[in-house]
């Protein structure tokens, strides 16, 4: 009998631990992430601002983390899961491309040329601006930021 108890009890405590440690924070994580999203949605609908609700939610979450009302540990689990698997969530909108194949065919070259040229410009101009501003010591801050590379 005692042997059985010894076998069962640790299991039971383990089970309790799993519930008390793992589950509550999971719910808290969901409350924080979806809460930020909901507030973002609310702000977007009330102010009519042309900013996606999810972006407002993201900035709000960053702000809450910055002022310390939310600790990174509270949202780490769910945010790691969501960020690491981001590509999965846009597979469905990607599939919708099958509805627009004729539109793409009709404008194929303007899409390709515009995107390629624009990407080359962004790469170069962002790089040049950054290089140039870093060189002029006035802008690059107090420390020699070679270390922050």
């Amino acid at each position, binding site marked *: 009998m005692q042997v059985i108890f010894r076998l069962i009890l640790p299991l039971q405590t383990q089970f309790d631990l799993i519930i008390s440690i793992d589950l509550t924070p999971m719910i808290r994580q969901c409350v924080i992430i979806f809460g930020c999203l909901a507030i973002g949605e609310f702000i977007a609908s009330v102010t009519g601002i042309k900013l996606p609700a999810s*972006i407002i939610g993201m900035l709000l979450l960053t702000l809450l983390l910055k002022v310390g009302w939310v600790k990174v540990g509270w949202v780490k689990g769910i945010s790691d899961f969501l960020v690491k698997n981001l590509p999965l969530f846009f597979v469905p909108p990607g599939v919708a491309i099958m509805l627009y194949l004729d539109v793409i065919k009709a404008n194929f070259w303007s899409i390709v040329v515009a995107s390629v040229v624009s990407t080359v410009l962004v790469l170069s*101009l962002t790089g040049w601006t*950054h290089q140039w501003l870093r060189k002029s010591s006035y802008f690059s801050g107090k420390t020699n930021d070679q270390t922050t590379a």
Partner: protein
Amino acid sequence: MKSFLQSEVFIVAFVFLAYFAGRQIQKRTKLILLNPILIAVIIIIVFLSAFKIDYKAFHEGSKLIEFFLKPAVVALGVPLYQQLEKIKKQAIPILVSQLVGCVVGIISVVLIAKAMGAPKEIIYSLAPKSVTTPIAIEVSKTINGIPPLTASVVIVVGIFGAIFGYTIMKWTRVKNPVAQGLSMGTAAHAVGTSRSMEISPKFGAMSSIGLIVNGIFTAILTPYILELINIWFPL
């Protein structure tokens, strides 16, 4: 059989499977061209047309997965918070170069597409093409573009940037490694970032700053830049 293939449960499982297959294929081959999303999308489209499942039925199931795009964008707040200190250290070089990249990216793609005779909704869909797909899709929705077109252009731009980005920067003499990493994130978002990550984690960290900051700028500025362009060149 067809009603099973059209059920939400099957479709959700199939999207997971297709994405998993895409990731495995990239892991094995290590080719940037074989982007997991691209593979997953192709597998699903081939499957849907082979079994004559119409898009509407597919969407019933797939929107359950697509829904998580929004909370996933919110979750990007955590990496943004973790990079805040780094951004602060060289706030002006980073913020100004991101602003330049964002504005140049939108204006150039819009004007070139316009000059080549693309219709309005295509031009709008191309405007957010440099930023990470979830943000680009959301922006495309707010400016009345075609989100699926935006998504695919963004992915292709990312692959293009990841493959040729460092070569292009060699030609155009962007020499500073910090600037290179940053530009990769600005122009080629997550795909460019993972390419930078292969070179070194430091490049990767700079790229992810570029990805997030340009994402925010693009989300905020795109509607207004388009309005301004509309004044001089009615789209």
